[in-house]
């Protein structure tokens, strides 16, 4: 707690809280990163859930690099936003719920990737993932949960703005 109290008093933290520009600029990065991670997740999950089955799954490979880029962009901009009001955020339930939901979305994406790899292997090297027409039930469940967790993350993120306590004087 001492560290957080110190962090709150740094020039940077004060600038983030009190300047006209600090918050909006960091939020710009946070919004673009969200579009990349959540947008690409949505599209991939839609495909796994049965949208347009002719789309080869491995065509998403390069998009995942972009999604990871967005993820790190939001991890960094998220830490910066956190440094603006660390103690108030930790006392805001919506913030804690948002962190849990991000972890849950990451876990279900990891499960989704594992399930798909598991299906790919026994079929042999010649059977490409792209030819997989019907998705295994596990993959569908993981995809549905991923979408729900990301939506929950966005809802919780919005709620932070409405439920966070007043800034320190």
């Amino acid at each position: 707690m001492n560290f957080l109290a110190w962090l709150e008093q740094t020039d940077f933290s004060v600038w983030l809280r009190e300047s006209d520009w600090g918050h909006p600029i960091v939020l710009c990065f946070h919004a673009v990163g969200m579009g990349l991670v959540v947008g690409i997740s949505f599209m991939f999950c839609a495909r796994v859930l049965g949208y347009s089955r002719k789309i080869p799954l491995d065509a998403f490979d390069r998009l995942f690099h972009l999604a990871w880029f967005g993820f790190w962009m939001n991890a960094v901009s998220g830490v910066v936003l956190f440094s603006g009001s660390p103690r108030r955020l930790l006392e805001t339930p919506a913030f804690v719920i948002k962190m849990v939901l991000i972890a849950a979305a990451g876990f279900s994406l990891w499960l989704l990737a594992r399930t798909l790899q598991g299906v790919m292997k026994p079929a042999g090297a010649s059977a490409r993932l792209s030819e997989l027409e019907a998705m295994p039930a596990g993959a569908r469940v993981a995809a549905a949960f991923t979408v729900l967790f990301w939506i929950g993350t966005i809802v919780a993120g919005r709620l932070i703005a409405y439920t966070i306590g007043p800034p320190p004087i």
Partner: protein
Amino acid sequence: MTETEILHWVKDTWLGVTVSRSRWLFATGETFHFIGLSLMVGGLLIVDLRILGFLRRMPLKSAMAFLPFVIVGFLINLATGIEFFFADPFMYWPNPAFKLKLFLIFVAGINALVATIVLHRHAKHAGLDDDNFGALTKATAGLSLSLWLVVILLGRLLPAFEGSTEFF
């Protein structure tokens, strides 16, 4: 009707009164605005990057199959955007970032129209399997990604310009 009269009318409509009086309608709209943003970005990335030649493993037809997500995302954001504007027209309208955002959305619409026309012409002459797109087609794809990026940034910068009527 003068500008002020129009803004007063907007504020006094059923929608304006309902949203500004409600405790949660605005916040719910914002949440949907972000979900719509994600749908648009996800779909546009696939379509535009494919046209630009970055996602060669994605068959062109498969990439184009993601367009409905873009349209749904846009309609969600149009509806929620109108909701926001009606709740507080006097805050939005004088804001230069808001006016520029509206203008760029309009330009992005024209750009999408041009893209549709050149893509159809390309499909007619070269077929949908040929993906050696001309410079004009690629330009529309690049412009689309750039315009929507700036639209997102302007949306998040709206509060920074609140109270000012010009950028500089």
